[in-house]
Structure formats: structure tokens, C-alpha cells
């Protein structure tokens, strides 16, 4: 299972925020739906206090109205969406999303994703994989582009969030297009959607498997544990493998020999040659 990925879906709550927020955002989303620019959502109904509609991630392309100018775009998105909704992973994922939403006191997409990953991590990853596949297909058929980059929030103001991507690039995104709490150092995914000449970026949460986080933490803990050196000799200052003593030559000279080879060192020579 991949360690982290971007969620393959978003809900009506994120879309409303991206489209201006509040009642205006909701009206805009409904207008896009009516115009067929958004694929038909999966209606999860009312969960706790929230009405939840699930959209595949590529619905973000519909937020760019220029999509209407591409022949067959709407039909292609709906076809892709239909296929996704038939996948077993989708059903498992929606159940996990409902479970996760029931625990939310206020809408928090990041928390929703975290809860869904805890309940159906494998299905989430499988669904994400299918969405990536569908996005590639749409890219080939329609000439639109989807790209996911990972990074961390470097700074957040009332208007923008600055994201430092792992590539080193810095991206500035309007706060309205940020679906996570804009805390500095928070890990995020930057979804970039290009339709014709227009590109929009959206800041989304990152899916982490808590279980794998724990495994990873354990691994790092093991490799950073104090050194143990079996079969090595620790002398006063250094560690080295103490070699077996060389095969001893059993005889000794009866007296030292004073050789006449001294004063012939080539090593003190620093002449010109190479």
C-alpha cells in the first residue's frame, strides 16, 4: 500500500468552498451541476448534521467553465464517474466516509479523510489508484491535465497559502481553494487542474495510514537506537575488528640488526614528475 496519496474524491462541502463558499458557493455548484459540468455525485444523504455528496476528484475540472468548450468532455467525465462508482473499493470507501463523518463535530475534510483511511485504508488507496487511472484517460481524450504534487504549507495569510512542494517549487493558492486547516508545516497535496489555457490549484489533505506511520516510526526508532557491536573489540577510543594474530614467525634474532638502508627514502622526494 502506498504510504501517502491525495484523496480520490471530494464532497459538496469542498466544492462549495472552492466556488466561493456559503450560499453563493452552493448556488454556483448547483448551477454547474445543472449545466452538466460536474459529474453526477454519489448522494450519501444526511450523516449527523451534514448532507454529503461525493464527487470524484476530477470534478475539479468542471469548476473551470472552459470545460464546456471541449467536445465530449461532460460525457467523458460522467462515463468515468460511473465506472468508478461500480468498483468494490468505492462502496467500501463510502461506508468508511459515512462512519468517519458521524464523528465530526464540525466539517473537517482533513479529519474526514483520516477517519476513512483508518477504517478502509486499502479501499481508499485502491479508489485513489482508479481515479488516477481515470484522470490519465481523461487527459488523453480531452487534453485536460491533472497533476498532484505533495508539499507542506510554508505560510498562510487570510488570503493565500504558500505551499513548498517537495520539488522545491513554491506555489501560492488562494485560501478559498484550500480544503485543509492552513497550519504551517502541515503536509498537503496540491491538485492542479489545467483546462485549455487555464490552470487552477487546490490544496487537499494527504492520506496517511496510521498503521504504517507506526511501522515507520518503529523502523526509525530501531535504526536510531544506540549502537550494539557484537564481535567487535572496543578499545580505548576506536572500534575495529581485531584481526586474528598473523601466523607467528616463531624465531627471533639473537641480537638486533642495524641496517644500512636508511637515508634512501623516496618518500621525501617532491620533485616535478607526475
Amino acid at each position, binding site marked *: 500500500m502506498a504510504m501517502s496519496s491525495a484523496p480520490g474524491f471530494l464532497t459538496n462541502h469542498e466544492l462549495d468552498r472552492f466556488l466561493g463558499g456559503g450560499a453563493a458557493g452552493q448556488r454556483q455548484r448547483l448551477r454547474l451541476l445543472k449545466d452538466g459540468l460536474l459529474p453526477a455525485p454519489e448522494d450519501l444523504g444526511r450523516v449527523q448534521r451534514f448532507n454529503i455528496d461525493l464527487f470524484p476528484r476530477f470534478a475539479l475540472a468542471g469548476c473551470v467553465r472552459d470545460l464546456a468548450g471541449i467536445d465530449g468532455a461532460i460525457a467523458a467525465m460522467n462515463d468515468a464517474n460511473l465506472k468508478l462508482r461500480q468498483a468494490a473499493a468505492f462502496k467500501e470507501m463510502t461506508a468508511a466516509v459515512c462512519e468517519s463523518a458521524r464523528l465530526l463535530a464540525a466539517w473537517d475534510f482533513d479529519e474526514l479523510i483520516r477517519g476513512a483511511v483508518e477504517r478502509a485504508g486499502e479501499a481508499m488507496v485502491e479508489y485513489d489508484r482508479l481515479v488516477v487511472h481515470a484522470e490519465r484517460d481523461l487527459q488523453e481524450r480531452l487534453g485536460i491535465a491533472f497533476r498532484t504534487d505533495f*508539499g507542506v504549507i*510554508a505560510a498562510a495569510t487570510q488570503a493565500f497559502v504558500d505551499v513548498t512542494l517537495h520539488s522545491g517549487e513554491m506555489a501560492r493558492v488562494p485560501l478559498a481553494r484550500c480544503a485543509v486547516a492552513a497550519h504551517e508545516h502541515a503536509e498537503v497535496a496540491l491538485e492542479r487542474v489545467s483546462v485549455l489555457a487555464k490552470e487552477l490549484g487546490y490544496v487537499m489533505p494527504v492520506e496517511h495510514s496510521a498503521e504504517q506511520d507506526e511501522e515507520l*516510526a518503529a523502523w526509525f*526508532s530501531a535504526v536510531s537506537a544506540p549502537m550494539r557491536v557484537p564481535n567487535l573489540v572496543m578499545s580505548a577510543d576506536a572500534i575495529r575488528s581485531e584481526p586474528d594474530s598473523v601466523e607467528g614467525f616463531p624465531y627471533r*634474532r*639473537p641480537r638486533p640488526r642495524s*641496517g*644500512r638502508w636508511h637515508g*634512501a627514502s623516496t618518500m621525501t622526494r617532491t*620533485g616535478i614528475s607526475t
Partner: protein
Amino acid sequence: MFEDLGEGPHYEPPGEHVAFGDVFHSAFMRDVFVRSDCELLGGGPLPPTLAPRVARWMNHQLDERGIDLYSPAFTAKPDTRWALAHAAFKPDGLALHAVLISDSCLASTALAQGRVGRSVAGRLLFAPLSFVDEQKWSELVEKEDFGRFPLPPDERLPDGSVAELACCFMADARDVKEHAAERAVSMRPALGEELEAHWSAYATRRGPRAYERNALKLAVLLSNGEPSEHAVAVTDQLAGVLDCTWVLEGRDLEDISEAEEAVRHGERQAADLTPALVRRVSGRLRELSALAMAAADALERTEK
């Protein structure tokens, strides 16, 4: 060993130029070697923005440098040439001492010391120092082990220092040049000669230390066991012949080499230098001939 070394001092402050026998004390001087698990590594510095998360996993506080991640799973790049190797190191990971084993002429070329129009390039060979107790150090002096050279004590070196000639590693000349100030001591010529003879014995099984031992083995054969005074005296004559060849090769012919270079570079005239060199070499050859004849006679007498 060290019969002719005298009392010292055996070391001096590092000279301007890096030379054979210089002892470095530098953080990058690692006793590195490869095993069959050696693989090329890709990767590199993790962006500082991500390092804190990795640090949390590692239960470490990382400084501003962040952390580097390397793996054979990442694509290896020819410009960095990282590879997985092994190293012997101190438990505290502190800097290592190592002695330069590449000869001074090669070091000067690699480090562009006194070389006009040359750039710093190549690699230099180092023997790491290990540190043994007094008893082991004395044992290494008493019973020669060609792979290990015990260094005479000095306050600037850790006690019981031993140059591990059997664990040599190479360092890039560019980094040696950059860290040339991180030398603890330079060897004085007499100690440098001892190290050279020891190194020759280890690396090529030739030179004074190797032939002295082999001559003693002949004395063992002649005595059919514990070498007698007489047998040792005979075989010492054989070693004396080889002393003469060592001087002929290492001093006389090297001086000729230097003279030729001086002539080639227009610094001296051949006519000024050659006669004296010829006289010296011919004299050495006659000395060698006389020593060889005497040694042969002495050996032949053992058969009677």
C-alpha cells in the same frame, strides 16, 4: 623494529605542503571499505521543510541541515557517485586519525603543491589509526606485523596509535587539499623511512623489513632450527647486499631522476650534473659487487 630510530623527536609540526607520513585528524577521514553489498545510491538532501516529520519518526532533533536520504532505489547520478560502503568508526562518531601513505611526489602532484598550471585532482591513500593498550603496542614493536605500524608516542597523537596499513582507504585530493590544515603532525624523515619500509613490506613483500625477515629464515634453515649467531651473521651479509640495492634504487637513482627533470625543465645543465652522478652510481655498484662477493663467499663456507 625501530632499532635505528633513535630517541626522537620523531614528529614535527605539519609543513606547508602535505607529505607522506602526515597524520590527519579530520571528520571525513573514514576507514571505508566495500563489501559484496556495495550498491550505487541515489537520493540526496531531504527538503528542510520535510525534515521535521522524518525527525519525529527518528526521535531526533535535527539541526538546520535537515537530513539526507540515500537508497539504491533512487537513481544514482554520475555527478555525485554515492555508493553504499562500510566503515569502521568510533562509538561517538568523532573524527578519525589517518596517516597519508601515498608518496610525497604523488601527493604534491595530486594537490598541485609547487606545480605550475596543474589542478587538484586524483585520490590519495590513507591508513587509519587505531589505538591499542601499551602491552599490545609493545608487542607490535617486538613482533613485526607488516599490516600494522605502531607509531612512536607523541602528545599530539592518541596513546597507543597504530597505523592500520591493512585497512587503507582513499580520499579525494580536493577534500584533502581543503582540509590540509587538519593535520596533527608530520613525521620526521627517520620515522617516515621506517613507515615506508613497513608499507613496502606489507604492500609488496619487498624492501628492508621483508628481506630482513627472509634472511633470518635462511639463518633458521642453515641452523636447522633456532638461528645461531654465526648463521645470522652470514645471512646479515645477504641483507647488507640488499641494503645497498635499496640505497642505489631509492637514493642514487631517484637523484638521477630529479636531475633529469631539472635538465628537461631547463633549470640545470646535464654536463654540470651527470659526472658526479655517474661517479656515485659506479661507486655504489662497486660497493654492491664487493658486498655481494663477500656474502656469496660466506654462504658457500656454510656448506663446508
